[in-house]
């Protein structure tokens, strides 16, 4: 009996003493949902997390091109053989399985914004201005995301609450696009109010009051021209763009400088890329954008390798002849041509060609692709101003602003004469935009905004009625519908 008692004592003692029984172990290297959103530092972390996602949204799978450029038909495959699904975009033959019809990454970005907008007001900040700034960034990014979603897909599920629990309503259906615009207008107003003004050349990759006003101009121009808006919207747009022009952004004399320097004072807003922010040594993921434009070394004759930018990656994408033949003037006339496009004869036949923007940087012989993606430049501010004023029947002011951009390009004063009609001025603005912003992810939505899709885009001629008149919208990806059957496909797709 004594032995049993001793044994039991040993047993109980060792269970209670030697062994820790605590099962409530919190993670060490990450943060749980319940322990986040307590301090100012949390808010700051979330702010940069949101921007990191913003970059991922636009860059991964080159979405910025897929969504906003490809469908103009100005793109084609590079030296690599395969266009795959891309062909469907630049031919405007999309369906519910086509690449880039998935809006997932934009909604992921929206969720980040929603969580910031929910929690940051509850956090005590030592600096109230910074609190406003964080909120301003979230409003700006959410306005951008919903605006692009609305432009591309039309009617949308409107989600303004961050998702934190499976007990929330996870399944939302598409609301009319007009309701989306109401939200976009509120958000952009908040962004303009809360974001601080910008100093040109200083951190253009963080949104500023001027960046918000650029977005606001773009939004109201679109509402005026594409969403049954009128002078009220145009006036809003004018106020916004005037506020941008009050700041001291410049036009670089040399067009190339706007792309070779990530801190150019021409940049109003950009998306930041850096080698040190991406662990993949090939630079594959971070700089897909430019990575896709440069020639593969195997496709560059040895004699040209010092002249032709090349890397180990594959040139998947390049501008199509539909673009280069129609829009590129000789280099002697337009300084932008050489930056946008290069084509030189191959000694043994054919040509070697490439988009000359976003070349990355050569570091000890290896080309690294981490040029910041330009979202808004001062050149666009002038062109927006021209577009707004022309729409408000101030043709002369419009031409004056248009000529600022033309002067840099062609080196000629008053390139566009005051004798142009209103319609001709619009045509000129659009043409300048298509050249000025080549490969910058603008052309598709620009052409639609000017109402010229069925004229300018070769593959769309005569297709106004296609897809029940919804040919200019994107179909919703099958994956999105399979996950949430409340989402109804865009009619016609």
């Amino acid at each position, binding site marked *: 009996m004594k032995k049993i008692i001793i044994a039991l004592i040993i047993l109980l003692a060792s269970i209670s003493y030697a062994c820790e029984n605590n099962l409530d172990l919190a993670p060490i290297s990450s943060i749980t949902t319940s322990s986040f959103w307590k301090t100012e530092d949390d808010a700051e972390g979330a702010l940069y997390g949101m921007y990191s996602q913003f970059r991922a949204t636009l860059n991964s799978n080159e979405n910025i091109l897929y969504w906003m450029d490809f469908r103009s038909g100005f793109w084609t495959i590079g030296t690599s053989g395969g266009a795959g699904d891309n062909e469907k975009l630049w031919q405007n033959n999309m369906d519910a399985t086509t690449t880039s019809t998935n809006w997932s990454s934009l909604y992921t970005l929206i969720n980040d914004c929603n969580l910031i907008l929910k929690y940051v007001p509850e956090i005590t900040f030592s600096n109230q201005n910074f609190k406003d700034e964080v909120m301003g960034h979230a409003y700006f990014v959410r306005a951008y995301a919903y605006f692009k979603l609305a432009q591309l897909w039309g009617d949308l599920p409107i989600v303004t609450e961050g*998702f934190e629990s499976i007990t929330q309503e996870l399944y939302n259906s598409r609301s009319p696009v007009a309701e989306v615009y109401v939200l976009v207008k509120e958000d952009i107003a908040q962004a303009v109010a809360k974001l601080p003004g910008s100093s040109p050349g200083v951190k253009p990759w963080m949104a500023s009051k001027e960046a918000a006003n650029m977005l606001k101009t773009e939004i109201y121009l679109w509402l005026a021209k594409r969403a049954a808006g009128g002078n009220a919207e145009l006036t809003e747009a004018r106020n916004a763009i005037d506020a941008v022009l009050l700041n001291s952004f410049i036009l670089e004399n040399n067009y190339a400088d706007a792309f070779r320097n990530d801190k150019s004072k021409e940049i109003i807003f950009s998306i930041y890329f850096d080698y040190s922010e991406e662990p993949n040594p090939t630079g594959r993921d971070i700089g897909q954008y430019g990575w896709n434009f440069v020639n593969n070394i195997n496709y560059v004759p040895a004699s040209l390798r010092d002249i032709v930018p090349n890397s180990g990656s594959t040139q998947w994408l390049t501008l199509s002849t539909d673009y280069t033949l129609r829009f590129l003037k000789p280099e002697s006339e337009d300084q932008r041509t050489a930056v946008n496009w290069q084509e030189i004869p191959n000694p043994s036949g054919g040509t070697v060609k490439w988009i000359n923007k976003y070349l990355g940087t050569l570091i000890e012989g290896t080309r690294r692709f981490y040029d910041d993606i330009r979202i808004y430049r001062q050149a666009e501010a002038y062109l927006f101003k021209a577009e707004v004023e022309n729409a408000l029947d101030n043709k002369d002011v419009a031409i004056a602003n248009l000529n600022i951009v033309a002067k840099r390009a062609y080196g000629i004063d008053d390139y566009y004469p005051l004798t142009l009609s209103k319609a001709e001025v619009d045509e000129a603005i659009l043409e300048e935009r298509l050249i000025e912003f080549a490969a910058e992810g603008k052309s598709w939505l620009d052409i639609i905004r000017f109402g010229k899709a069925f004229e300018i885009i070769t593959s769309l001629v005569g297709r106004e009625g296609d897809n029940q008149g919804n040919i200019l919208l994107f179909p919703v990806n099958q994956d999105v519908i399979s996950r949430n059957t409340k989402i109804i496909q865009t009619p016609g797709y």
Partner: protein
Amino acid sequence: MKKTIIRKKETISPSSGRIKVVFLLLLFLLFGIVTAFSQELTITGKVSEESGAGLPDAAVTVKGTTIGTFTAGDGSYSIRAGRNSVLVFSFVGMESQEVMVTDQRTINVILRTQMVGLDELVVIGYGTQSRKTITTAITQVGADKIEDVPLPSVSKALQGKIAGVRILQTSGQPGSEADVVIRGGSSISKSSDPLYIVDGFPRAVNDINPRDIASIEVLKDAAATSIYGARASNGVILITTKSGEKGTANIDFTVTTGFQEFGRKIETITAEQYLLLYRPAAANASNANANYLTGPTATGINTDESTWTTRFLEDGETVPEGWHTTLDPVTGKTLVFQDNDLQEQLFRRAMQTNYYLSASGGTDKITYYTGVGYTQQEGVAVGTQYDRWTIRNNVKFTLNSKMSLISNYDHSFSKTNQFEKEANLFTRGAFNARTIRDYFPDGTPGWGNNATLANPLWVNYTRINNRTFQRSTIGLSGDWEIIKNLHFRPSGNYYTEHYTRDYFEKLHTFNTQRPAEAERDQSQRWQYEMLLTYDLKEIGKHDLSILAGYSNLYIEDQDVTAEAYGAPTDNIPTLNVAPTPTNASSVFSEERLVSYFGRLLYNYDDKYLLTASLRNDGSSRFGADNKYALFPSFSAGWIVTGEPFMSGVSNLVSFLKVRLTYGQTGNNDIGRYASQGTYAATYPYGGSAGIRATVMPNLALRWEKTTQYDAGFDLHLFRKENIELSFDYYYKRSDDLLFSMQLPRETGFNSVEMNIGSVAYNGFEFLVSTKNINKNNFYWNSDFNIAYNTNKVLKLPEREGIDKNRVNGIIFPDGTGVGGIAVGEKLNGIIGWQVDFLIDNEEQANAALYDERAAGFDPVTRKAIKGRKFPGDFEWVENWEDGKITDFDQFVLGYSIPHTTGGLTNTFGYKGIELNIFTDFAIGHSITDMARAWLNGVGARQVQPTTDVLDAWKEPGDAARTMQPKILYHDPSAQQNHTRNNSYYTYRADFLCIREISLGYNIPEKIANKIGFKRLKTYVAGNNLHYFTKYPGYSPEVGGEIRHNSGSYPTFRTVVFGLNIGL
């Protein structure tokens, strides 16, 4: 044994109840006293083998004491023992015998070679049990079944040998382990790996030396595994390492050496055939640059510095040596080119060498086993290698008659050289079009097409990628017999695993930065356990054994990685000279599992058997409200042959046991903190660190619970038990399945961990062992096993408007669908388009359905009409009938895992020569080989098509002879005949593999002894010798979808020669 039981039955009245127990106890005591005071005698005799030869070194002990001796060289012995004491005669590999001492002074015994006997002990969780009385489904694999397999991996050595365990070698990388799935697993989306317990401790099976293993027990039904609670749903594999036995030292040395070679090549066309087919194809396609810029078919700028070789023969030039030549079908000029099959150059004949030295033995106080092993295995792919050192020490100290201590220590070190991204080589780089340059004139390897479609020789030349593992276990356990039959067994184990990975790229064409990476991971585990067991043996006909236990397991992982670039030299492959850091990260995590458990084993009269167990597990992984759960089990067995009515047929049925079991187990395989939701670091933005919500919390997350029923029997036929049969039928149902449920895209999360739905699995296992012939020094034994397993989804969360609540599949407009997971359907379907027929002429092409994925580029008009089909394209079968072929026209083309697996071993022996022929098979799985489709479909661009394309459709009428669609310059952007998942590229992967053949010769002892050895054995053994299968790829053991960017290291054939010396 049986007679004893019957006698007992006659002497004890069944109605005596409690008095009987007391009486027995008294008798027991009395018996003990009588024994103690009885007179001692000197017994002599001889222990012989069946052949009559004396057996040296056999142990002779007096049962229940520490008195013992060993037989001399001629088998004779002498021992002092009390009257009525019991002498035990034993020898490794022989069946022990017990003889009671009465009046005789001479006792001669013949020890028989041990057959798989019913008295043999089987390791069950936290204890052992005789094979006869086991009521659950446990398969034991002895050391002899695995130690001579010429593969250094335990899991691969088990392949095909255990009914109901599906083992597939999915990778041939030296050092890799096989996929092991017991009874089909238990989970939809979580791991189906069984729990490995090595000498009582949960750890990875990797780097365990098969020669250290004494036995492996595979616990299959829930009644057997339930004692391991929340980790047991996928079955449990108990590995017991060797321990020493009292006696003179046995020193054993084994050396094996042999070669390995690549088994199954993927046949590609020659460079000449390639140019003749693809230069015209390129000329007809939209990309006109293809034939004159650079590239595999191009002639333009290929010089000595280019990676491709094709060019025109210059005027007056003679064809360079080793180059090939042909007439260009496009220009009529003479093409010159090299023909380099990189697949041939990637694979080689590789060496494998193993050394193993062990010593075991012991005295009354200490027994020991120690084993040291070294393995060097080159991979069949250049540059890959595996080196492993292992050491193991198991020592038992007998402190006194009541207490003993066991100390275990083992350490392994392994080093693996492997490729960083295997798919880039085995399904991509090896298939660079054969006009590629293998080596430049300066002797350095050509780099291949691009960084991810690189020449494997070049990858090997420019990369260093080494991994090492060090794994150690230190264990100490005690056994204290507090009072008779009441044992207290505390144990503590510490396990540590250090992992290192070092990666370096030399300066090369695609990257001049010399990126370097280093990873250092440490995992530590502590386990404390306390067991109390109490055995009440033979109280009348009752036999009771009780176990109570406590277990506490704590795991801590610390992972550190760093990356940098910019080193000035290739000669220092470490981070210290790389000035620019790009990533530095350390991630720590921990987990704890606290458990209480108990078990009761009851046996009445060796006829009626009952087992019950209960475990309570608490895990830190689960949601706050669901930390603990109970896992019960019951099982019952009836030894029918123990009944008197069976005695009449005992000549025919020597043993029959019927088993019925029920049990519950769990699966806790979710992320350590998944229930709590996660905010984690993203890539920084603008130089500032970012944090985002990455995992949605689910505080209600709980165990996946599996309930399993098993019914089976064990049947031995004929007196000599020369036919043994075993059959099990089981049904299991997993509820609250842990599942990453896809969320609507609008939530911003891809999925959330949830407990949803139920799946049922059922199947049977059958095995038969026969001793076909055993006479005149010749024997022939056979073992056959076969198992069938199928599954069905029973329940999923309600999804409005969706038929069968399908998740993760393709949903048709009316709510029905295909693929993913759906109620009433089987798991693991592979979906794709079903070929109807090959369009042969214009008429059929015009009548063909609109095909959403077909670009419809017409080489004649040079215009694309989307959806248009041409002769030589596939016409697909419609599933969703809307008059066109879309994503809704997919079908289940097959299943990725086999429903039936099994194996057959035949062993022949003649005078010391033993021949083993082992085959195994798997039936019912399919492979959709999109890697092959990719080669055939994009051949014109960079890769070498397989010989399939030689049969391609060329002109109307060809459909009568072939189903291979026409050659397209670039199928993905054209008609997608190849490059969409489809039935043409889906192969039945059923296979029969000649897995092992071994031929051994035990050199007669007399000869061995003469040259100073106790034993001497030589053998030759082969593994993975040949597959019989219709699948044309590397290996049919990988089911499901193979894509060109997902292929893994192919398996290979091994032949080794071995020598085993006993000292």
